[in-house]
């Protein structure tokens, strides 16, 4: 068969050569269309339930990370009229840009304007300041606005954030140019301007990926130099390099022609191909030169193909097995990289035989006299000779040393963490990561963790209160930033209506508040059809995966403990006895809300008892006959008093007396008619208003009392927002957990952080699967090739130890297992095993003629020297990846390089000892 193939290649050399050239031109043209993106949501299958869910949610509520960009404008002082005007103009211009779908900044956040007795809801842009003084006032009010502070304006008040949703089909590069064209001429005296977002990251990554691919050229030069150092000859080195380069060209062209995008991992491929596949060409050429020494050109080619086809195939097969095993992982960059690299190695193998075969048939070199690789007495050879002499004597020392290294490696290896964050992929010095860190610092993150909330009515007070609680709970995690949802807006509105910073318990109140919120764009965008679902958004910092996982797990646990089915009980409709029981539920809600705010309550039972007691105490107990108390009543009744056109201060003595003497309401009406000279109608109207206001002030007193008591019991002062939770004591409606309850709610976490976390977990599983696959595939190949089960298994030992040691080094140097580094082990098995194969083959061959010791010595200096050279070549090549802008690529390159070197060390020290203990049939033959 070999003969047929060799004849075919020499016979059709010209057509083959032309076809290869044509394919290369075609591939080269295609390569320009290569699309590189690095969208985490595409790392795992689209059918993955978490991915599907995420897509559904962002589809519904917008805010898909894929189309979101942010622009930050930092000023020395943002709140001057001039700078605010600039931000406004930029926002407006962005809104008009054809490539932009929507723009969000603090300017279109709903703003509740409170006057002493009333309110108004407007978009902020409608109440734009007209002077620097007004600008400063706006600053103060925005820094107290939950919808804006830390979300659209940094905590320090000097950075404005503009969120831009772009149309689907804009390229990142074009987008960046478009944004800069709008922002740069208008920005004025900014301190810093940053652009961030998935489309922009994609552009940067794509650019960085091309740069990384270009490193292949440097790698080629480096390999050329290393090979020259090894062989002292440039001849026959260029062509193998070209073979490897063409192989990666073919793969890139193939990928591009499918029209599918690839992750940035692909950019490591050209360097890897050049490093790993150059050997095939070298095999071919060195053999060819040997044959050409004594044969005619075509015959030499023919003989060369027949001789080297199987060894190169064997070497390619094991390497391909290593790459192919990566496809066992379900994480896209691994699968993809594995598949395409397998293809690359295959192409390199094909090209090494077909291209070189046809090339030397068409362009035969003159007869060669010198040998391609000459015997040398260099440092490496000396070292190997020394190894051969001492290895069996120092067997114990070596084995103990290896054992110690393995034990240490296992210990450190267990410390290796998986990490799929952008920072870990790109490295902390990467431009994107630096920008991201800026956004983390100023705005608490660039990603969002969403709590998708579904209910038969998300406007139900119970549901809204739970959302608020979950948001508060999230604040304690360093990875999570400010939460935002419709609750913030409703709470602000409720506060202006009745001075309570809470979600009111009454559904009617929420309905009434909704009347205001109704057509604010932000608010409507946050509620799904028929009020069935809404989102709680929590800004998320890109943190280490471990920190994120902890936050997500704890959030999930917290959500798990929230009752999902409740029933509404109206306290006005139950008797006193039953009320006492319901107060318990009410107080439980208060306590859980306080705890969600990270308040440690030592004596929970005591607090519970105390609060229940306060809840059941009638409001009249908190009445006071002081001027302060009455003045508060008058403030609450301001509108009615104004309506009647009377002076409020005239009412103070009447009211004090009314309260002190506990007079009847009729009496109050009469007093108002007599002393204030009101008509009966007016007096009745005012009396009712004052009575209502008195109840409100009683409630306020009651809550103040509850605050003092709570503070005493928990031993710390409550902050404003925490104090307001105690207003729940005044709820007229209680929501009690009930399996048959008619108010149902469910919460589900989603967002990039959840997906990253999932990918991170599947990374580890993917790694294990891939390793097992690589191990099994390579073992089987070895057993088949050597025709021995024992030898096959023994042959796996050096590479296994190499992998273990590599993990130890990663643990020792704190290198995380990320999308890139995770592939090193499988690739190393495939590529590193070649050394073992070469060694054993030669050793077996030598055994036919020599003793075990002699065979070992000659194998070490002969084959040993070749594989040392090869590993140095490979390592030198992949180390070039260290220059990549992407941290992950850099580490990936360095790791592969080190592992290949390590693998040679293990092969050359352990294999001789191991093989010495096996009985070979070759020995028997010799005897």
């Amino acid at each position, binding site marked *: 068969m070999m003969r047929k193939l060799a004849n075919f290649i020499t016979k059709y050399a010209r057509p083959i050569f032309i076809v290869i050239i044509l394919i290369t031109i075609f591939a080269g043209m295609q390569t320009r269309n290569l699309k590189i993106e690095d969208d985490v949501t595409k790392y795992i299958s689209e059918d993955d339930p978490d991915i599907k869910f995420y897509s559904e949610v962002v589809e519904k509520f917008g805010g898909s990370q894929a189309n979101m960009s942010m622009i930050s404008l930092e000023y020395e002082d943002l709140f001057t009229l001039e700078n605010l005007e600039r931000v406004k103009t930029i926002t407006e211009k962005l809104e008009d840009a054809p490539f932009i779908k929507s723009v969000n900044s603090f300017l279109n956040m709903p703003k509740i304007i409170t006057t002493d007795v009333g*309110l108004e809801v407007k978009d902020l842009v409608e109440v734009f300041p007209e002077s620097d003084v007004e600008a400063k006032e706006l600053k103060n009010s925005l820094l107290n606005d939950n919808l804006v502070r830390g979300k659209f304006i940094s905590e320090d008040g000097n950075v404005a954030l503009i969120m831009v949703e772009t149309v689907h089909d804009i390229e990142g590069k074009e987008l960046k140019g478009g944004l800069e064209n709008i922002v740069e001429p208008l920005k004025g005296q900014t301190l810093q301007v940053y652009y961030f977002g998935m489309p922009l990251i994609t552009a940067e990554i794509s650019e960085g990926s091309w740069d990384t691919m270009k490193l292949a050229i440097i790698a080629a030069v480096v390999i050329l130099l290393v090979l020259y150092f090894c062989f002292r000859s440039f001849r026959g080195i260029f062509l193998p390099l070209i073979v490897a380069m063409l192989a990666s060209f073919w793969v890139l062209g193939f990928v591009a022609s499918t029209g599918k995008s690839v992750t940035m991992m692909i950019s490591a491929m050209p360097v890897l191909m050049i490093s790993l596949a150059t050997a095939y060409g070298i095999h071919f050429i060195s053999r060819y030169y040997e044959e050409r020494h004594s044969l005619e050109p075509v015959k030499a080619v023919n003989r060369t193909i027949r001789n080297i086809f199987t060894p190169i195939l064997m070497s390619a097969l094991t390497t391909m097995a290593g790459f192919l095993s990566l496809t066992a992982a379900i994480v896209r960059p691994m699968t993809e990289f594995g598949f395409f690299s397998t293809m690359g190695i295959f192409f390199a193998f094909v090209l090494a035989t077909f291209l070189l075969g046809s090339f030397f048939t068409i362009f035969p070199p003159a007869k060669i006299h010198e040998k391609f690789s000459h015997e040398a007495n260099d440092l490496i050879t000396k070292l190997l000779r020394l190894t051969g002499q001492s290895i069996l004597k120092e067997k114990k020392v070596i084995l103990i040393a290896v054992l110690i290294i393995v034990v240490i490696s296992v210990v450190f290896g267990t410390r290796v963490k998986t990490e799929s964050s952008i920072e870990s992929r790109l490295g902390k010095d990467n431009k994107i990561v630096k920008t991201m860190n800026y956004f983390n610092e100023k705005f608490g993150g660039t990603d969002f963790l969403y709590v998708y909330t579904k209910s038969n009515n998300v406007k139900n007070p119970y549901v809204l209160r739970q959302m608020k609680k979950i948001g508060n709970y999230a604040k304690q995690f360093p990875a999570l930033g400010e939460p935002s949802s419709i609750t913030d807006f409703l709470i602000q509105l409720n506060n202006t209506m009745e001075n309570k910073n809470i979600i009111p318990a009454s559904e009617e109140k929420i*309905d*009434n508040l909704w009347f205001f919120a109704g*057509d604010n764009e932000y608010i409507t965008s946050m509620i799904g059809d028929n009020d069935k679902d809404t989102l709680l958004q929590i800004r998320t910092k890109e943190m280490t995966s471990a920190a994120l996982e902890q936050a997500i797990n704890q959030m999930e646990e917290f959500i798990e403990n929230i009752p999902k089915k409740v029933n509404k009980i109206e306290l006005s409709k139950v008797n006193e006895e039953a009320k006492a029981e319901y107060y318990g539920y009410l107080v439980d809600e208060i306590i859980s809300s306080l705890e969600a705010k990270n308040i440690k309550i030592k004596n929970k039972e005591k607090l519970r008892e105390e609060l229940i007691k306060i809840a059941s105490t009638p409001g009249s107990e908190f009445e006071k006959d002081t001027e302060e108390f009455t003045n508060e009543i008058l403030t609450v009744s301001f509108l009615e008093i104004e309506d009647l056109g009377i002076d409020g201060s005239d009412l103070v003595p009447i009211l004090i007396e009314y309260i002190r003497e506990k007079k009847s309401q009729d009496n109050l009406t009469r007093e108002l008619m007599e002393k204030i000279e009101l008509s009966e109608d007016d007096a009745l*109207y005012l009396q009712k208003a004052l009575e209502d206001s008195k109840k*409100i002030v009683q409630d306020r007193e009651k809550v103040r009392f509850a605050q003092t008591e709570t503070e005493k019991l928990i031993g710390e002062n409550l902050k404003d927002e925490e104090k307001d939770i105690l207003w729940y004591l005044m709820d007229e409606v209680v929501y009690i957990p009930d399996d048959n309850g008619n108010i149902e709610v469910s919460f589900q976490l989603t967002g990039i952080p959840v997906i990253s976390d999932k990918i991170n977990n599947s990374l580890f599983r993917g790694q294990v699967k891939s390793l097992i696959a690589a191990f099994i595939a390579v073992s089987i190949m070895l057993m088949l090739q050597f025709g021995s089960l024992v030898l096959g298994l023994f042959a796996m030992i050096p590479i296994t130890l190499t992998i273990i040691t590599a993990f130890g080094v990663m643990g020792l140097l704190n290198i995380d297992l990320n999308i890139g580094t995770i592939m090193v082990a499988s690739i190393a098995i495939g590529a590193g095993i070649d050394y073992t194969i070469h060694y054993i083959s030669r050793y077996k061959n030598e055994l036919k003629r020599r003793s075990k010791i002699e065979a070992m010595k000659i194998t070490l200096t002969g084959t040993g020297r070749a594989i040392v050279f090869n590993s140095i070549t490979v390592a030198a090549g992949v180390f070039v990846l260290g220059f990549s802008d992407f941290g992950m690529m850099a580490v990936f390159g360095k790791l592969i390089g080190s592992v290949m070197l390590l693998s040679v060390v293990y092969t050359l020290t352990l294999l001789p000892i191991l093989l010495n203990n096996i009985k070979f049939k070759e020995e028997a033959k010799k005897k």
Partner: protein
Amino acid sequence: MKLRLEVYILTILVFLFSINIASAITVDEIMDKMEETAPDFTTQKTISEMILIDQEGNEEIREMIMFSQEGENGKSSTLVRFLSPKSVKGVTLLNIDDGEKIYLYMPAYDKPRRIASSSKGDEFMGTGLSYEDMSMDYKDKDYEKKLLEETESVYIIEVIPSGEDISYKKIILIVDKEKFYTKKVEFYNMSGNLTKTLEIDKIRIDDKGKITPMEIAFTDIEEKHKTKIVIKEIEYDVELSSSFFSIRTLSKPTL
């Protein structure tokens, strides 16, 4: 904010008939005739339905009752109360003297609140038309107006706004030739594109020849939504007590 529309709903009805543009003779004549057809009254009671139609065609219907009165100072006061849907039932707005003071009463909160009055440039809830668009109050403005075209059934009048802070390049009025009322208004933005329209789809003519619009439709072409107002009952010169337009009326269960 949704309430803005409600606040001004009646004002518009009043203003629609008092278009007063004085320039070219023909336009002038048309305007005079139009003024003649507008009903005059001091108080008015209307029950109407407001239908909000969004991009997807979803409808939201609100029913409301409105009272209005033109005071001696020439300023009008209105009181609007929602009758349905349940979520807004009883929500009442009181607008005194052309928005000098606006009060809001929400039954769930019981206490009336004053809300800030909106300026003329504000958007007229959901419709994208401003108070000024609706009022078409060009009396004191030296806008250029001309009769563009006269067809068999309508006059087409062009109004070119001028001055600072203008939001439209031009406004086209389509006036019924026979009955002299505005059938349609088209608003063109500064880039010259048609962005909003206001149409009167149904009218009622009383024995004196006075015309009351019974169905009005606003369309926001850019935002792709539509608001329809259907008048179900209308009464002129109803009797109202002297303190009717005051805070205490807000919380009264029946008006």
